[in-house]
């Protein structure tokens, strides 16, 4: 069924976060950069505070790559790459969203309802300053470059 959908071979890049809260915007800004790099070759979505709507945003893609801010105690700018395709990524790394349903919950809900894309990769960028109205802090720049590079590699691997 999924294979017949128009997006069956689609790679979808979804940047998450809150654009008003400093480093929390890192996923959104990364998505923007990927859009510049790839043009129309991939579908890029900036999803501010998506919560449960993430299920719909992923639906129909065969590969979904998510980028979000995380806070696990590592140095700001550290990059996590988690494969959610087969098993849960856990809620420890990803803070609870203000919608009560965060990235890990939305992924698990999609899995429970059997609508999760075959491959789901989640990039988490460790954040520093998330004060309202602040710009991205310096460590985000390097992390952003790294995530973009890795996503380009993921894309090439899919199309090899």
């Amino acid at each position: 069924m999924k294979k017949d959908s128009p997006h069956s071979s689609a790679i979808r890049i979804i940047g998450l976060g809150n654009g008003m809260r400093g480093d929390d915007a890192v996923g959104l800004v990364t998505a923007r950069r990927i859009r510049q790099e790839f043009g129309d070759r991939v579908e890029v979505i900036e999803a501010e505070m998506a919560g449960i709507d993430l299920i719909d945003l992923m639906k129909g893609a065969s590969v979904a790559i998510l980028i979000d801010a995380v806070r696990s105690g590592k140095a700001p700018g550290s990059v996590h790459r988690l494969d959610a395709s087969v098993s849960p990524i856990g809620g420890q790394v990803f803070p609870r969203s203000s919608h009560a349903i965060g990235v890990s919950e939305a992924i698990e809900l999609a899995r429970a309802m059997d609508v999760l894309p075959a491959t789901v990769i989640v990039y988490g960028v460790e954040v520093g300053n998330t004060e309202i109205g602040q710009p991205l802090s310096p460590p985000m720049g390097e992390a952003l470059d790294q995530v973009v590079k890795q996503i380009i590699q993921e894309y090439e691997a899919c199309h090899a």
Partner: protein
Amino acid sequence: MTGKEEARNTRTIAVDLVARVEGEGALRVTVKDGTVQDVELRIFEPPRFFEAFLQGRHYSEVPDIVARICGICPVAYQMSAVHAIEQIFGLRIEGALRDLRRLIYCGEWIESHALHVYMLQAPDFLGYASGIAMAKDHPAVVTRGLRLKKAGNAIMTLLGGRSVHPVSVKVGGFSRVPRRSELEGLKDELLWARDAAIETVRWVADFDYPDFMPDYTYVALRHPDEYPFNEGQIVASSGLQISVNEFEQHFTEHQVAYSTALHCALQGSPYQVGPLARLNLNQEHVTPLAKQVLADRELSLPLRNPFHGIIARSVEILYALEESLSLIERYEPPPLPALPVVVRPGTGMACTEAPRGILYHRYQVDGDGVIREAKIVPPTSQNQSRIEQDLRLFMPRLLHLPDQEVALACERVIRCYDPCISCATHFLNLEITREGVA
């Protein structure tokens, strides 16, 4: 009493995280000698930051800024903000623009209520620890809930430009209004959703509810002609009937030591806002269809059990869908997407019905249209004292249970209010501290 005896007679239950509320918060309950002593719902407070953040901003930026206070009820923040500022500028929004504002609010209610009913509160009644666990056993029900929520998203996206943090709401109207054909395009899905909403009311009405009926003071807007969204008097079940401009004379906020959120009281006492309060205070505007669905389940208004909030919320989903369909039916695009604005200095207030209850805004604007002062009283901070009171009343029947079960039961009480801690606060961790002999 010695320190040792004191310690023996004092039992503390701590729950550090309240699950399935919008955001995170902390609850601390102290039980001493088998009696509930203290109940403290602790909350941090971003609206306070926003109040400061708004100072010095141009009035035209306000709708976009306040929309970011909450990802669940951005329209409510925008509506209270634009109506307060329009009061200062002497603008009155009528006709199709007024209808569109009702319609976008319907979208937000549907979206917010469907999420809470299906994913956040229903698991409490069906014995699941989470919406995810419930989805495994009831995929069809959860699919219905998510599609219902999506119907609300569709309204928000069409009118607001996007489903989260809509961008088209502005002082005077909208930056763009839809064509008739665009609204017509929503009709089929909304008709499906109306039937799904009827099923939702029937579904939740059949849940088993604890027998719990505190004596509440309900507070909501009331309008002579319609179920309230953007306009009306503030009324209370105690008989209070005031204009929105009198809000601060009757409702006072006070700081409590354990929380950075302000608690709001009506003449010194806790009160309840939200779907139950609205429904009970606006019975004459409940549609015949909704009344019939309730009657079929042998339910009649007023509903006095806080756990029936899920029924009230479901009835409001149905109302919002019926109202959406009727607003779309009569829609003719307005001549202009927004009324022209003439800036003048002054102070304006507005109160609108956010999904969780009345949301009060006051702004002071100078002659250049710059915000000098902003005050925001969100529904969750109004319900906070009432939630604490409910816990005090509900806990005695739980005290024989182990701490963990008490904590879960307390969470269920809190969730009745669908507290939006991200509105009233930043992160809500639930911490229940209980002291006393087991």
